[in-house]
């Protein structure tokens, strides 16, 4: 790895804290990912991306900035990367997956705030996220109350925070509001970049993002095979890198990985023996490096075959239509696409549980682990009815609530093992 100290220091990072983060991240990655058996060759690319996640990729961002391109950071799958690409910008997901510097975060946030929000603040206040420091615009969005109100506290801490409003009901007025918000966001991007969005540039952006999502969907479909050709951890990693990497290069790498996995499926080889208990996860997003639950599951004789999550199917499952001649037509298409996202902030939200059922069948999963981050009101509230509905239709469900700390790992393991024992009786 090259020496990036100068670049990090220019970005204003706290070098000591940042070194500590990288060292923890590096050893966790080795323990959790590199120790896995029968990994596909194609994962080497993602290993490389992770080893350079704060290095080479940041250098690419800095080079893009030097060429006059803008870096737009965001925290949510409702922020359309297509619009960012249409002004030749670079879209990056911002760090919110590690329990780092929570002491500082708790100085400005209530203690009963979810780990994801605390983590975002921990990274900002500790000056250890180069993506955030490199962002010309940080995009917030009114999803849950926690995020919504925390952006008020984040505002004075970043140079340009733009908050997007979001509807909470799938009504006609909700859709109209989303479209209006996307128009406003497009105007904001044009202003920030000094570039005009044209039907051509937006169509190109949509094509790039569609191709990226299509590649990940291809990966999802391959995971329906038994034996599973790829571990849930590795597939989650691909879904996490989705938010950081150059979209075109990412798409090529995922497709290459899928070519290899297709061969595996044909030969009937996989990462775990055929017949290993197949689970799927549904619920809150797992941002890098939140690998706790999948790691516990996959070291308990089970394999994860799908994620109904924003870092997973909820982020990629819809494509955007490109019919339409004007920018307004295309924003309409984008609105149609994003308005389908069945995030738990919507009420009611019946399509989510319907899709969990569909996924379970398609992926041939034996049971569902419903994962909520502690204090994430929308998903925790929804978890009860979702569990009830799934169990009613004969789909065994384990409901878990946890955070980024490691202290409940033993308890989680006990529950997961008992759930697997339940699934495997006779």
């Amino acid at each position, binding site marked *: 790895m090259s020496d990036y100290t100068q670049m990090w220091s220019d970005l204003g990072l706290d070098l000591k804290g940042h070194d500590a983060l990288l060292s923890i991240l590096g050893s966790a990655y080795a323990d959790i990912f590199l120790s896995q058996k029968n990994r596909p060759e194609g994962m080497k690319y993602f290993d490389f991306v992770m080893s350079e996640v704060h290095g080479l990729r940041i250098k690419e961002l800095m080079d893009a900035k030097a060429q006059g391109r803008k870096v737009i950071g965001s925290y949510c799958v409702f922020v359309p990367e297509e619009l960012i690409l249409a002004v030749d910008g670079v879209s990056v997901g911002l760090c919110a997956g590690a329990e780092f510097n929570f002491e500082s975060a708790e100085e400005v946030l209530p203690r009963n705030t979810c780990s994801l929000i605390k983590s975002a603040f921990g990274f900002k206040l500790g000056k250890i996220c180069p993506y955030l420091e490199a962002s010309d615009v940080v995009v917030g969005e009114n999803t849950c109350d926690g995020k919504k109100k925390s952006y008020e506290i984040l505002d004075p801490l970043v140079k340009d925070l733009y908050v997007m409003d979001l509807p909470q009901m799938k009504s006609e007025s909700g859709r109209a509001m989303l479209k209006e918000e996307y128009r406003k966001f497009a105007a904001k991007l044009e202003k920030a970049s000094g570039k005009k969005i044209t039907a051509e540039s937006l169509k190109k952006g949509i094509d790039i993002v569609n191709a990226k999502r299509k590649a990940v969907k291809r990966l999802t479909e391959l995971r329906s095979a038994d034996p599973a050709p790829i571990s849930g951890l590795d597939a989650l990693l691909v879904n996490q890198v989705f938010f950081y990497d150059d979209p075109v290069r990412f798409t090529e790498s995922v497709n290459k990985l899928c070519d290899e996995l297709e061969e595996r499926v044909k030969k009937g080889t996989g990462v775990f023996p055929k017949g290993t208990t197949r689970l799927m996860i549904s619920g809150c997003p797992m941002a890098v490096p939140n690998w706790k639950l999948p790691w516990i599951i996959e070291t308990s004789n089970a394999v994860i075959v799908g994620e109904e999550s924003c870092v997973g199917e909820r982020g990629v499952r819809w494509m955007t239509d490109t019919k339409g001649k004007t920018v307004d037509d295309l924003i309409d298409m984008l609105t149609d696409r994003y308005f389908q996202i069945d995030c738990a902030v919507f009420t009611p939200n019946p399509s989510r549980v319907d899709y969990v059922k569909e996924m379970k069948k398609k992926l041939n999963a034996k049971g569902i682990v419903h994962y909520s981050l502690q204090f994430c009101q929308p998903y925790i509230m929804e978890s009860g009815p979702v569990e009830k509905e799934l*169990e009613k239709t004969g789909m065994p469900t384990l409901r878990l*609530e946890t955070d980024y700390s490691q*202290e*409940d790992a*033993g*308890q989680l393991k*006990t*529950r997961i*093992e*008992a759930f697997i*024992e*339940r699934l495997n*009786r*006779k």
Partner: protein
Amino acid sequence: MRYAGLDIGSRTVKLAVIEGGELALSRKSVTSHDPLETARSLMKDAEFDTVTATGYGRYLIQGHLECPVISEIKAFAVGSRFFSSECRSILDIGGQDTKAISLDEEGNMSKFEMNDKCAAGTGRFLEVMATALGFTLEEFSAAALSAEKAVKINSMCTVFAESEVISLTSQGAARNEVALGIHRAIVSRSVALLRRITPPGAVFFAGGVALNECMKTLLEGELGRTLFVPPDPQIVGAIGAALSNT
């Protein structure tokens, strides 16, 4: 064949040996700072052909002894059938965990709920509260049973509840009424856990806390369901582990 089950809990280590469908041996010891040594001395001279480990320390023993492991949830589900073939609801309150388990008609585990990561409402909670009131565990239960009314305890966090108890007694609240309040608080929590998942009918009550008479009386009253307490409620997990291998 003699099948052994070893249940390494957070407060007590239990060993059971099953032979010909009967309990041939049962031993218990307090989990020390060295649970592995405690387990070894329990197994000393005990005769058995196979051993299965369960409980908090199940992987600890697996590192030193080639043996299968099962979760304590399954162990209690299987173990409960040794004593009762009718109960489809199990409440296990151990040293650090509270579990509610429901069984299907054939006795297979179907759903379970566990307390969150803290020790609220567990055996350890009772121990800390008894000490705060200056009681032994036996005195604690008897005192609670003797109270005519309960002082309401608001906090279920072991640390906060301890300060609450101290402040109540310093305000002159009767010790036995505070004791009853503490028992009531745990009962209402356990009942909520049970009601969430278990079918109607008799409840199998196991774990160290099932030795507490006051808990039994209050639970039965609150649930309005018959409570089945096995002769030794602490050994159920070890028996379940042993039986899981037969």
